Every structure is written in structure tokens, then in C-alpha cells.
């Protein structure tokens, strides 16, 4: 196989050397800058949460599979991704046991009990985050002001009352603060710079399909534009498009959560429906539900559950397909 150009008939699958392990390593690599940023902004407690979450996810998967006499698949790296995503969804003030219980819920309850990798019907990290959010609302919503650079001072974190900058009005953060991550929030959702870089890397490496994040962001952009009428103005507080797009878990969700292979549709059209649906649900929750200023996780979980239906509705038509003669009458 020395030739670089291979002439073959469609479909053109490019899966030489693609394995779950390589994909997961790419995802970890894409999330690393964000992890570093979270430690930079939130200090040692962020590092501790990341380590605890990843270790418990891996250990949980290992011991569950050992105990149930299954093939141990820890080395595929998917547990590392789940643990990391879970830590990204925690505030820096969360105690270590929340990271541990969350990872165990994600791996054992949401993933392994439904049959392991490829069979879970919801994104494990998101489902676990939602379970913890509803269980320990005060611990999970207490957001921590960033302390850029002072990363050995985890004990002096100040908790602020609102869940995300979305809950505050008028907005007290500049666009640059929102973009660079110098705002209170969950560990992995604040720094948009590293999130976008990681997302772009995954799209270029073809690890994720561009359709979900792009349709997600575009739909959100349009919906918030219709609602607020301004793309950006400093006076309008959180009531403008850019503020909405850059705050909360939207970017993290669009690139790293909604694109989960197992819980997103397979067909290209289905993926666009997924992105549009996520943005639609997110918009509905943010705009019309005063008790939840942030709804990204609920929106994605909702679309996770719809994924099998979307897949069923968007089966691509085979080339040259002709409708059976009888079907016109039935329809």
C-alpha cells in the first residue's frame, strides 16, 4: 500500500488506524488546554477535582467490569474523557466527594449498567452532572470567583450566589472576560478560548462532525438575536447575543457534549437536527424558565433521548432507491 491515491467506489470510509483509543486520546488532548486554564483560574482545588474525577471514573469502570466478569476496557480512554468532562461541570468549590460520586454515577449507573461504551442512552458526564445538580443544588451552584494565577490558594475561594453570569443583571463582565474565562462558572465552561481551540482541533482531526456544533451555535445565535435584537452592546447587560453565547456551558456543550458519538445521531441531517434541537431547548430554558438561568445540560440530555428517533427519521435514501409501488397508497 505505497500509493497515496486510491481509486475506489463510494462510500469513501477513512477509518485506517481509527480506534476508540485514538479518538479518545484526541478528545483528551483537545480538553487539556481547558483543564490547564481551569487550574490557572481556579487554583489547586480545580486540579484536585480533575484528578479525583478521572481516577474515580477509571477505577469505577475497572472494578465494575472486573466484578461482572466483562472484558476490561479501561485502556480505551473513554472513562478518562468522562471523568474529565464531569470535572469540567463542577464548580471549584465542590468538595472532592462530589467529584468521586459523580464519576461513579456517570460510569456505573449511566454507562456500564446500560451495557458500557456504545450503549448508554445519555451522555454519562451530563447525566451525572444533572443528578448532582438536583441533589446538592447549593454545593453545585455556588460558583467561585476566578483567581487568575494564584493557583496555590484554593482555601480563599469566594463563592458568589448566582449560578452563572447569566443569572446576574446588569452584566458585570466584559466580552474579553467572558471569552478568556475570567468569570465565575464551572471549571471547564469558562475559558472559551481554549474550548474553541480544542473544538477546532477535533473538527480538523475529524474526530467530531462540524455539523452539530455549527448548527448548535448558529441556531442559538439566531434565536437570541430574535429575542434580544442586539448582537452586542455594553449597556444591555446579558440581553445580547454575544453575552448569551459566551456564558454558561453553551460552548463546552456544543463541542464536547452534544457531539458524543453514542448519544448523537449518525446521519448528517440528523446531526443538524441535533444541533438545532439543542439550541432550541437551550433557548427555551434560558429565555422562559426563571428558575434555571442555565439549561445547556438539560437541552443536550433532552436531545440525547430523542437521538434514536432522529436516527430513525433521517435514514439516508440509498442511491437509486425507488419507492415500492404500494407505498403511495399507504402514505
Amino acid at each position, binding site marked *: 500500500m505505497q500509493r497515496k491515491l486510491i481509486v475506489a467506489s463510494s462510500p469513501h470510509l477513512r477509518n485506517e488506524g481509527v480506534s476508540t483509543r485514538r479518538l479518545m486520546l484526541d478528545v483528551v488532548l483537545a480538553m487539556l488546554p481547558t483543564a490547564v486554564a481551569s487550574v490557572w483560574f481556579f487554583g489547586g482545588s480545580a486540579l484536585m477535582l480533575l484528578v479525583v474525577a478521572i481516577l474515580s471514573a477509571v477505577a469505577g469502570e475497572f472494578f465494575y467490569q472486573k466484578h461482572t466478569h466483562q472484558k476490561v476496557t479501561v485502556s480505551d480512554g473513554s472513562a478518562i474523557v468522562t471523568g474529565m468532562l464531569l470535572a469540567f461541570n463542577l464548580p471549584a468549590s465542590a468538595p472532592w466527594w462530589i467529584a468521586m460520586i459523580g464519576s461513579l454515577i456517570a460510569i456505573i*449507573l449511566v454507562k456500564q449498567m446500560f451495557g458500557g461504551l456504545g450503549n448508554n442512552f445519555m451522555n454519562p458526564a451530563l447525566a451525572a452532572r444533572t*443528578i448532582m445538580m*438536583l*441533589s*446538592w*443544588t447549593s*454545593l453545585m451552584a455556588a460558583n467561585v470567583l476566578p483567581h487568575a494565577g494564584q493557583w496555590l490558594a484554593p482555601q480563599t475561594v469566594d463563592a458568589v450566589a448566582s449560578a452563572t453570569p447569566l443569572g446576574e443583571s446588569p452584566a458585570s463582565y466584559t466580552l474579553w472576560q467572558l471569552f478568556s474565562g475570567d468569570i465565575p462558572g464551572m471549571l471547564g465552561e469558562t475559558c472559551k478560548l481554549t474550548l474553541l481551540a480544542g473544538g477546532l482541533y477535533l473538527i480538523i482531526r475529524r474526530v467530531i462532525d462540524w455539523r452539530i456544533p455549527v448548527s448548535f451555535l448558529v441556531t442559538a445565535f439566531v434565536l437570541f438575536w430574535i429575542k434580544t435584537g442586539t448582537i452586542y452592546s455594553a449597556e444591555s447587560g446579558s440581553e445580547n447575543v454575544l453575552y448569551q453565547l459566551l456564558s454558561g456551558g453553551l460552548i463546552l456543550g456544543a463541542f464536547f457534549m452534544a457531539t458524543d458519538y453514542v448519544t448523537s445521531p449518525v446521519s448528517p441531517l440528523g446531526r443538524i437536527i441535533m444541533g438545532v434541537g439543542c439550541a432550541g431547548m437551550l433557548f427555551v430554558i434560558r429565555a422562559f424558565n426563571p428558575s434555571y438561568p442555565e439549561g445547556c445540560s438539560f437541552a443536550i440530555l433532552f436531545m440525547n433521548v430523542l437521538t434514536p428517533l432522529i436516527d430513525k427519521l433521517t435514514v439516508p435514501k440509498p442511491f437509486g432507491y425507488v419507492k415500492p409501488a404500494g407505498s403511495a397508497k399507504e402514505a
Partner: protein
Amino acid sequence: MSGKKGITAVFMNGIINENPTFRLLLGMCPTLAISTAVTQGVGMGLATTFVLVFSNLVISLLRNVIPEKVRIPSFVVVIATFVTIVDLLLKAFIPSLSQSLGLYIPLIVVNCIIFARAESYAFKNPPLRALADGFGMGFGFTLAITLLSAVREVIGSGTFLGIQVMPAAYHPMAIVIRPPGGFVMLGLLLLVVNAVIKAVDKRKLAKAKEEIA
């Protein structure tokens, strides 16, 4: 299988072999909705047991009088009578429990455990056996719902029978006493109970084999 067994076997059948909650998975609506606190679980279980025992008895007594075609409406009349009695008794003597169980007491009328026993047992068996079956099934249900509500109350509120049992540092996992937590905890409890029963059966089988050999 019910023909030759003794009364005790009929009674035990409802508690272990055909436990309505853990083995037959009947009556899930009250099980999930009520089991957020132990007092509610016990109250619901006993109220259902009362209805089950008397409806079984009366239906068994009337089994030769009720025509086959109208048996379901007849069951409804009998069951509804006893549910009304329970409802009024609770309102009169334990108003706090009546208030916390609310709609779920009148809803015992449509509890499928009671219908299932009326249809499949009481309608075909003599009164004494039907009575034992009613007690067995009722206690089986009470045990199961109490167990589930104990687990949910301890994890979800850190209390047992309203008394703080977990250390002050414990943060109650609030989702466990909400509806989604109910489904998850019921599933996990089913897993544990069935694993235990399986292990016990295995041991019994091994013992029996040893005795033969």
C-alpha cells in the same frame, strides 16, 4: 400450584416467591410515589394490606354467586367499598398520614396488586386461603415499600422515621426522594434483592444435591 400447599405456604408465597413488588413488579405507582419517607411507606403498605385482605375474603366468599361476565365490575365495587372505609378511617384517626398520602389512598381502588389477587387467586380459592394470600401479599408489599422508603429516606433526607440518623456533615442526596431517584433506587433495590434471592436459592440447591449424594 396453589391447590395442595398449606396456609403458611400460601402466606409466605406473597412475601418471598411472588412478592408483588420485587418479583411480580405490580403496584409500581404507589411504590414509586409514596416511598419518600418511612412513615408514608408503612402507612401505604398497611392501608393496602387492609383492603387486600378484606377484598380477597369477600370476593372469595362471593365467588360462586358472582357471574363470570360481571366479575370485574363486582371486584371494583368490593374493593372500592374497603378503600372508602380506609380513606375515612385514616381521615378520622390519623389525619396527618391521610394528608401526606393524599390522592394515593383513593387510588388504591385501581391498585393492580389487589385486582391481580382478586382475579387470579380469591376468585378461585376458598375464603381461608384467600385470606392467607391477602395477608401474605399485603405484608410482602408493606415490607418492600418500607424497605424502599427507608433507603430513600436515609439517603435522600438523612433521616429515618423523621429522626436524624446520618451525621451532621452528611449532605442528603436530594434527588433520591424525587421521582427520578425513585425509579433509580427501585431498580437498584430490585438488583440487590434478586441477587440475594438467587444466592440463597443456589445455596439451597447445593445443599439438596449434597443430601442426595
